[in-house]
């Protein structure tokens, strides 16, 4: 489900089934030389999480990307977001990111780090199949966590 009014009504009435939160972590880097790759990473992360939501609509609540500036203190971001997530009492929380800085942050559990693939110049069919390939890498991690 998405973090939108209509889906939240359903979430509230079906909480025992929708037990998993997915939070994309997105770095904004507006240096002229990094702008394009930052946008590409954003596109990649959002297409991937959208596919994931489609696959697991009834069990996950997909949040809008948590966006922070390139200089942001990841440790602090980690503390704040995990404190906020606790309030909603999800059984499982996944963070998805393409930002390598998260690999050294230990305060967050279940951070799935994926190197962004620049899909913006691919044609639609090719992009679709690349993204499904990516999705296939992520799905087993969810199934494992749930089992």
């Amino acid at each position: 489900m998405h973090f939108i009014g209509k889906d939240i009504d359903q979430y509230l009435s079906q909480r025992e089934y929708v037990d998993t939160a997915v939070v994309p972590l997105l770095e904004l880097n507006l240096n002229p030389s990094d702008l394009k790759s930052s946008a590409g990473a954003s596109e990649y992360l959002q297409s991937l999480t959208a596919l994931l939501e489609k696959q697991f609509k009834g069990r996950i609540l997909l949040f809008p990307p948590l966006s922070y500036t390139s200089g942001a203190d990841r440790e602090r971001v980690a503390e704040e977001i995990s404190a906020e997530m606790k309030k909603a009492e999800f059984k499982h929380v996944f963070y998805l990111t393409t930002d390598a800085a998260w690999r050294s942050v230990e305060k967050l559990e279940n951070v799935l780090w994926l190197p962004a693939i620049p899909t913006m110049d691919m044609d639609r069919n090719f992009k679709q199949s690349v993204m499904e390939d990516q999705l296939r890498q992520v799905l087993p991690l969810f199934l494992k966590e749930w089992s």
Partner: protein
Amino acid sequence: MSNNRVSRRQFLGYTLTGVGGFMAAGMLMPMVRFAVDPVLQQKEGGDFVLTDQRVDEVTEEPVRVDFTFEQTDAWYVSEVTSSAWVYKEGDKLIALSPVCKHLGCTVNWAGDPEQPNRFFCPCHAGRYEKNGQNVPGTPPLGPLDEYDVQEQDGYVAIGVVKANTLVV
């Protein structure tokens, strides 16, 4: 009298303009809708979407067939890729929606290796028979929806989604 105050006449004037504005909008709206709608709805009618799945390659084993169409969400038009589970029953083509009738996850044919002749929903272990019938005792409360489906020049074409007609 302060000239900031709204006089009775001005007040009436404002109110009437307001009401008049509403009425004008009320009259215009249907006309605008009338003018715009046919364009917007072009793709949403009973049209079939051609896929790249050859009909002669479809067997009795359901295969996933993807198709892309334009979806209009208010004034935002986006391309959406959906899929269907397509198989043959004798000569008849059948296409089922992969959307789980419990809470909407995507179901897979033979998704659970232990029950290779059923659809499986990975979210809460929902199960369906090949014709879409939900297996009692699993969370889904109804059968999988069905798509209108036809052959176009040897390829599978997917139409609108409808309630399952195969389950008796």
